[in-house]
């Protein structure tokens, strides 16, 4: 069934564009890049149809990558229901975003380079998804980290872009550190990394080991999916072009963490403590990111924090045991979040680079298509009844309530806040009068609008088209939950309340936000500055590490000890030489004195030796 063809097509696209892109015209580059992704999407559809119901995982083995007596790691791929969904999401949304970025990147520099990196990203993401052992997954994991770095730093001539790239890469590396420790521990514990054997041996392993593996995997996932401790890189990642943010920082890469935790459900189900940790981190991130999102003025920053918050929801889903709900929300989130980002991309495109919402407003008339497609996405994300977002979010909230009621209430408040800041952005951008100084904002070309429309359709009806919970029921342990309409009503109510509040504050009476901001000065500045988390990290971690390394390692160790020793030896030799030079005075009598002195020493030595031996 040649599963390897799926990741190999984007790779071919990458190599062709990468090596000969400079000489191709834009059209050829488009054809190669988008073509390879569409082919890969078609191949995915073909394999899924061919595989049929997929009750059991279908896997193919290509070659043995590492072989050291008992421990061996093969390069083998497998497809089961979870992988199928991920493949569809990745290749589907990937191709839409590729089509969109043809228009968006039309008059940007380095055209072929952008598409080469995007294809490379697709290749690594597909390897990650298709991998059937942790090491191959880790290869994909690292690859996507690399591509995110490359794409964030796409405008490498701008300092903040390269800094953001570095930040993203380093923070991801911290997460990967935890992940690799987990892999080592698994090798020690289970002797292999293959999903099947690991999950079959997991129940027998001691709970403490599983907890440790779980927590380390969580650290990796937190790094990649931007959870509480390691989320700081995502907002800065907005420095990259908007399609990148859409593809990598909304739809696919950030979800890798959720996919990985979901994939290792066997470990987590036998490590309740780790599951609890996931849930707590998820809910905390959701609430925390939502509060920051409310005070942001940059349109992409708002959606970045909303991504962090929605990922928090997915982690809650996984944490409370509703794995299928988590993946369901992952899929729906991919649809509307990609749409939101692409929409904001076309808004920025229209305003030729303007990102600050305070410079926008009243765009309803000028770019109607973007406006209304974003309206659909906003409805979906805020959980407006009967949109796909509503379905997946409620599933999670119900599971959270079943697990721990307080989580449900925090989740509901966060849902309200989510609705508020999304519509705040919507109203600030499209309603009121135009505050910018761009004289004629123009609508985006159809090649950008078509994907928007498709995504709008998916975000509204996606939930119904693909019944994920039933589809994944066979793999994951299902939670039998009574259908409690009361809770659903409260959650959707919170969402509507958020929308109403946003409408009142930003359309009805525009003065209110400034009033609130002025009298809640302290809180507002705190939230606006993202709780100074970056500054804290900088002070707590970066400064000491950099300072420490400069002081201790560089000054102390390198210069002090190593150079010190080397130069020291040289200096000592010189000084001794200097002292001995005094001896060569040419004065025969001083020579004689020293000879006599030596003689005395020798005799003393002999005497002592003689005395000793006698």
């Amino acid at each position, binding site marked *: 069934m040649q599963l390897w063809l799926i990741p190999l097509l984007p790779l071919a696209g990458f190599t062709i564009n990468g090596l000969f892109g400079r000489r191709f015209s834009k059209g050829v580059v488009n054809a190669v890049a988008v073509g390879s992704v569409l082919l890969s999407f078609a191949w995915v559809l073909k394999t899924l149809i061919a595989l049929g119901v997929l009750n059991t995982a279908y896997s193919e083995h290509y070659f043995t990558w590492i072989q050291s007596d008992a421990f061996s790691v093969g390069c083998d791929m497998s497809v089961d229901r979870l992988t199928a969904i991920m493949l569809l999401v990745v290749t589907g949304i990937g191709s839409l975003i590729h089509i969109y970025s043809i228009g968006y990147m039309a008059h940007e520099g380095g055209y072929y380079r952008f598409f080469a990196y995007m294809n490379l990203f697709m290749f690594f993401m597909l390897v990650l998804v298709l991998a059937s052992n942790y090491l191959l997954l880790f290869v994909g994991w690292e690859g996507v980290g690399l591509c995110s770095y490359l794409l964030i730093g796409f405008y490498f001539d701008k300092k903040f872009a390269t800094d953001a790239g570095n930040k993203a890469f380093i923070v991801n590396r911290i997460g990967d550190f935890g992940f690799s420790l987990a892999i080592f521990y698994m090798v020690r514990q289970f002797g292999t990394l293959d999903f099947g054997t690991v999950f079959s041996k997991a129940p027998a392993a001691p709970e403490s080991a599983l907890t440790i593996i779980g927590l380390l995997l969580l650290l990796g996932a937190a790094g990649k999916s931007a959870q509480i401790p390691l989320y700081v890189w995502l907002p800065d990642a907005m420095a990259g072009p908007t399609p990148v943010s859409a593809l990598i920082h909304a739809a696919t890469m950030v979800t890798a963490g959720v996919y990985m935790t979901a994939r290792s459900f066997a470990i987590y189900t036998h490590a309740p403590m780790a599951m609890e940790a996931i849930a707590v981190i998820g809910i905390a991130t959701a609430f925390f990111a939502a509060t920051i999102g409310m005070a942001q003025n940059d349109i992409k920053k708002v959606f970045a924090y909303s991504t962090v918050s929605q990922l928090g929801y997915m982690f809650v889903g996984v944490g409370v045991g509703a794995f299928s709900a988590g993946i369901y929300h992952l899929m729906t989130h991919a649809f509307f979040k990609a749409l939101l980002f692409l929409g904001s991309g076309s808004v920025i495109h229209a305003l030729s680079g303007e990102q600050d919402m305070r410079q926008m407003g009243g765009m309803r008339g000028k770019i109607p298509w973007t406006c209304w497609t974003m309206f659909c996405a906003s409805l979906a994300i805020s959980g407006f009844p009967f949109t796909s977002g509503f379905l997946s979010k409620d599933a999670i909230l119900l599971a959270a309530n079943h697990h721990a009621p307080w989580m449900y209430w925090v989740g509901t408040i966060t849902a309200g806040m989510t609705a508020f800041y999304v519509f705040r952005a919507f109203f600030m951008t499209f309603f009121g009068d135009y505050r910018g100084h761009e004289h004629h904002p123009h609508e985006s070309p159809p090649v950008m609008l078509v994907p928007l429309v498709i995504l709008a359709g998916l975000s509204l009806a996606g939930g119904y088209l693909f019944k994920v919970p039933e589809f994944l029921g066979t793999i994951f342990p299902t939670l039998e939950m009574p259908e409690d309409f009361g809770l659903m009503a409260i959650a959707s109510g919170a969402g509507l309340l958020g929308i109403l509040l946003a409408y009142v504050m930003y359309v009805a009476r525009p003065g209110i936000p400034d009033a609130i901001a002025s009298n809640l000065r302290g809180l507002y500045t705190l939230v606006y500055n993202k709780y100074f988390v970056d500054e804290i990290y900088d002070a707590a971690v970066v400064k000491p590490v950099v300072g420490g390394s400069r002081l201790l390692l560089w000054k102390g160790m390198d210069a002090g000890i190593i150079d010190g020793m080397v130069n020291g030896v040289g200096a000592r030799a010189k000084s001794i030489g200097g002292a001995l030079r005094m001896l060569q005075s040419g004065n025969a009598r001083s020579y004689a004195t020293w000879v006599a*002195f030596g003689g005395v020493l020798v005799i003393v030595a002999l005497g002592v030796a003689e005395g000793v031996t006698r």
Partner: protein
Amino acid sequence: MDVILFLVFAIIAVLAAINVVVQTHPIASAVSLIGVMGSLAVLYLLLGAEFIAAAQVIVYAGAVMVLFVFVIMLLNAGAEVRKGRSFMASLLGAPVLIALLALLAWFVERIYPESVGVHFGGFTGGGPEAIGRALFTTYLLPFEITSILVLIAILGAVVLARKEID
């Protein structure tokens, strides 16, 4: 009797040696050195080394010292002028020498407390016949080498000391 002989000539030797060191004029120290060699020759006789005693007088006192006296006379070397007495040398030298002496003495007394007594007839092996036999059998090689050495020394001395005929 032997003790008296030893003491007399030992004291002569030591006094003469001190004179060698103390005298400012080289000729005086040369003569006192001859005195040392003479007294040593007698001590050799006491130790039964007749040939060596005679050789000492003939070779050492008779030839080498004459060379010294010659050089002193030729160079008309005056008394040593006392200048540039570096304090450091005596500071460092004197104790070292005293230490050396004390050490040697201690070493001798300690290592050879039970040394054999020396009297005149004690060892009669020192005669020319015994030395001749040993010299030309066991020590033939050194003998040949020293002969070459002396030849080289003569050549060296001649070359060094001759006036440049220019």
